[in-house]
C-alpha cells in the first residue's frame, strides 16, 4: 500500500468518525462520546495531512497551529453558557474566513503559467472565496449583535434590498469574469472584499432575535465553502465533511423557522422587530393602567400554597444567571409538596435547546423539563405559571392578534393558568421589540427586578413562611 493510499484510508476513517459523531448526537447520553469521536477523527485527518510526501513548511505550519490552538481552547473555556450563541457565531466566522483565505492562496498555485485554470477548479475557488467571505463577515456581525456591541434591532435604510441585490449581482458577475476572462489574483481579492461587504450588509437588517437562524444558515455556508475547497484540492474528506455541515445547517435553519412559524425569506428580509422600534405610543398605553406590580412576599405565599407550579424560563433567566437559584426555589417548593415542572419553548433562550443546556447546568432533573406540546395541556390545571424573563414565547398575540408580527408562532399558553407571575426587569418590550398583552391580563401580576435578585428574595420569603 502506498503512502497516498494510507492517507486516503485515514481520511475515510475521519469521514466515518464525523458521521458517528452526528449520529451519537441523537441522545444526551451518547452525545459527549460522539463529540470526542469527532475530535479524534479531526486529529486523524490533520495527522494524515502532515504525512503527505510533498508537504513543505512543516515548522511554520506547526508553530502557527501551536500558537492558535490555545487561543481557541481559551475562548471556548472562558465563555459563559449564556454567551454560547455568539461564541458559536465567532468560531463559525473564523472557519469561513479560513475557507476564503485557502481559496485566495490556492489561486496562484493552481493557475498554470501560461494557461487557464480548469473550469471545475475555477468554479470551486470562486465559490469558496465568495461563500467563505460572506460567512466570515456575516458571522462577525451576528456576534457583535448578540454581544450587544452594536444594536440588536434591525438596521434598515431606504433601498437597502436594492443595494444588497445589486451588490450580489455584481459579485456573481465578477466571479464569471474571473472564470472566463483575465484570471488575475487582484480580481479574486476584489471578490473576497466584496463578499465581506455583502456579509455585513446582509446581516445588519436582521433583528437580534433572529440571529440564531442566521448563525445556523452561515454555519451551512461555511460547510459549503469547505466542500468547495475540497473540489479545488480533490480531497474527499473536505467534500464530505463540508456537505454534512451544509446539509445539517440547512435542515436546522428550516426547523428553527418552523418553530417560529416564519419562512426563511421572512427571517432574512423581513427586518423583523423594527415595527416596535418606531412610535412609542402603544408602549405608553401599556405602562399605565392594566399592569399590576406585586411584592416577593405575595408571590411567595402564592407559590407555597399552590398545588402545581410551572416555571417558564426565558432568556432573562439566562442573562441574570438565575438558573441555579430557580432550581433552589423549585426544591424548596417541592419539599412543601408543590408539584414543579418547567415548560420549555423550542426557541427559549437564543438558540433552540439553549435553555435545556442552561437548566442542565443547574442540575434540574430531566423529567421535570416539558417541551411545549406536553406543557400546554397542563396550563389550565396549573395554579401558578412563573414566567422568568420570557416574553415573546408567552405572548397571546401570537394566537389571537393577526396584526402582530409574531402572529401564528406557537406559544406556551400561560394565560390559561389560574395565576401568572411575570418576573421582568422593566416594562421594556422583549428582544424582538413587540408589546405583550399578557402583562395587562387581570390574572397576571408583575414582579419587577433582576431575575436572580427576585428569585433569591422569593427563596428567603418562602423559607420564612
Amino acid at each position, binding site marked *: 500500500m502506498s503512502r497516498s493510499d494510507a492517507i486516503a484510508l485515514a481520511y475515510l476513517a475521519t469521514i466515518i468518525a464525523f*458521521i458517528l459523531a452526528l449520529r451519537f448526537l441523537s441522545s444526551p447520553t451518547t452525545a459527549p462520546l460522539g463529540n470526542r469521536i469527532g475530535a479524534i477523527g479531526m486529529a486523524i485527518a490533520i495527522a494524515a495531512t502532515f504525512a503527505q510526501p510533498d*508537504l513543505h513548511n512543516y515548522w511554520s505550519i506547526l508553530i502557527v497551529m501551536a500558537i492558535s490552538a490555545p487561543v481557541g481552547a481559551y475562548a471556548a*473555556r472562558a465563555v459563559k453558557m449564556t454567551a454560547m450563541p455568539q461564541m458559536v457565531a465567532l468560531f463559525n466566522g473564523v472557519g469561513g*474566513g479560513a475557507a476564503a483565505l485557502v481559496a485566495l492562496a490556492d489561486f496562484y498555485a493552481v493557475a498554470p503559467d501560461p494557461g487557464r485554470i480548469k473550469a471545475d477548479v475555477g468554479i470551486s475557488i470562486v465559490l469558496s472565496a465568495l461563500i467563505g467571505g460572506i460567512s466570515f463577515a456575516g458571522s462577525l456581525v451576528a456576534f457583535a449583535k448578540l454581544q450587544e456591541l452594536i444594536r440588536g434591532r434591525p438596521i434598515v435604510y431606504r433601498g437597502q434590498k436594492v443595494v444588497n441585490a445589486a451588490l450580489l449581482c455584481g459579485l456573481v458577475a465578477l466571479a464569471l469574469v474571473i472564470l472566463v476572462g483575465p484570471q488575475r489574483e487582484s480580481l479574486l481579492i476584489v471578490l473576497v472584499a466584496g463578499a465581506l461587504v455583502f456579509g455585513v450588509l446582509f446581516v445588519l437588517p436582521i433583528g437580534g432575535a433572529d440571529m440564531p437562524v442566521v448563525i445556523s444558515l452561515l454555519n451551512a455556508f461555511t460547510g459549503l465553502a469547505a466542500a468547495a475547497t475540497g473540489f479545488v484540492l480533490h480531497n474527499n474528506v473536505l467534500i464530505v465533511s463540508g456537505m454534512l455541515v*451544509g446539509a445539517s445547517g440547512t435542515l436546522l435553519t428550516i426547523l428553527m423557522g418552523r418553530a417560529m412559524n416564519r419562512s426563511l425569506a421572512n427571517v432574512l428580509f423581513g427586518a423583523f422587530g423594527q415595527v416596535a422600534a418606531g412610535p412609542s405610543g402603544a408602549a405608553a398605553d401599556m405602562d399605565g393602567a392594566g399592569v399590576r406590580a406585586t411584592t416577593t412576599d405575595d408571590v411567595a405565599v402564592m407559590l407555597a400554597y399552590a398545588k402545581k407550579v410551572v416555571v417558564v424560563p426565558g432568556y432573562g433567566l439566562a442573562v441574570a444567571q438565575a438558573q441555579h437559584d430557580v432550581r433552589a426555589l423549585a426544591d424548596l417548593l417541592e419539599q412543601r409538596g408543590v408539584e414543579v415542572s418547567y415548560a420549555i419553548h423550542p426557541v427559549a433562550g437564543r438558540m433552540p*435547546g439553549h435553555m435545556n443546556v442552561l437548566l442542565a447546568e443547574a442540575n434540574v432533573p430531566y423529567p421535570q423539563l416539558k417541551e411545549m406540546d406536553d406543557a400546554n395541556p397542563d396550563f389550565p390545571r396549573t395554579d401558578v405559571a412563573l414566567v422568568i424573563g420570557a416574553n415573546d414565547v408567552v405572548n397571546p398575540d401570537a394566537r389571537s392578534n393577526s396584526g402582530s408580527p409574531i402572529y401564528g408562532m406557537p406559544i406556551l399558553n400561560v394565560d390559561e393558568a389560574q395565576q401568572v407571575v411575570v418576573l421582568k426587569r422593566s416594562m421594556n418590550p422583549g428582544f424582538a421589540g413587540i408589546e405583550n398583552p399578557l402583562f395587562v391580563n387581570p390574572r397576571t401580576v408583575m414582579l419587577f427586578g433582576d431575575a436572580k435578585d427576585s428569585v433569591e428574595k422569593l427563596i428567603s420569603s418562602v423559607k420564612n413562611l
Partner: protein
Amino acid sequence: MQTAQVIIELTVLVLAIFIGFEVISKVPTMLHTPLMSGTNAIHGIVLVGAIVVAGLPDQTTWIRIVALAAVALGTINVVGGFVVTDRMLGMFKRRREPDEPE
C-alpha cells in the same frame, strides 16, 4: 480522466447531503445548540485544506502569509468548536449526579 474524477466527487457530495439530512433529522430539539456547535467544529476540517496550501513549495511571501493565516483561523475553529461542544454536552451528563457541588 479529469471528467471522471469530477463526477466521482459530485457523487460523493450528493451522498454526503443525504447522509447529513438523515443523521440530523434524528437529533432532538433539546440538543440543537450542541448540534450547531458540533457541526461548527466539523467544518473546521477546512484546516486540512489550509495545511495543504500552506505546505505547497515555492510560494511568494504574501501567499504564504495568507495560507498561514488560514491555518491559524482553521485551528481556532477546530479547537474552539470541539472544546465548546464538549463543555455543553458535559452539562447534560452531569445531571445524573444531582448532588455534585457547582
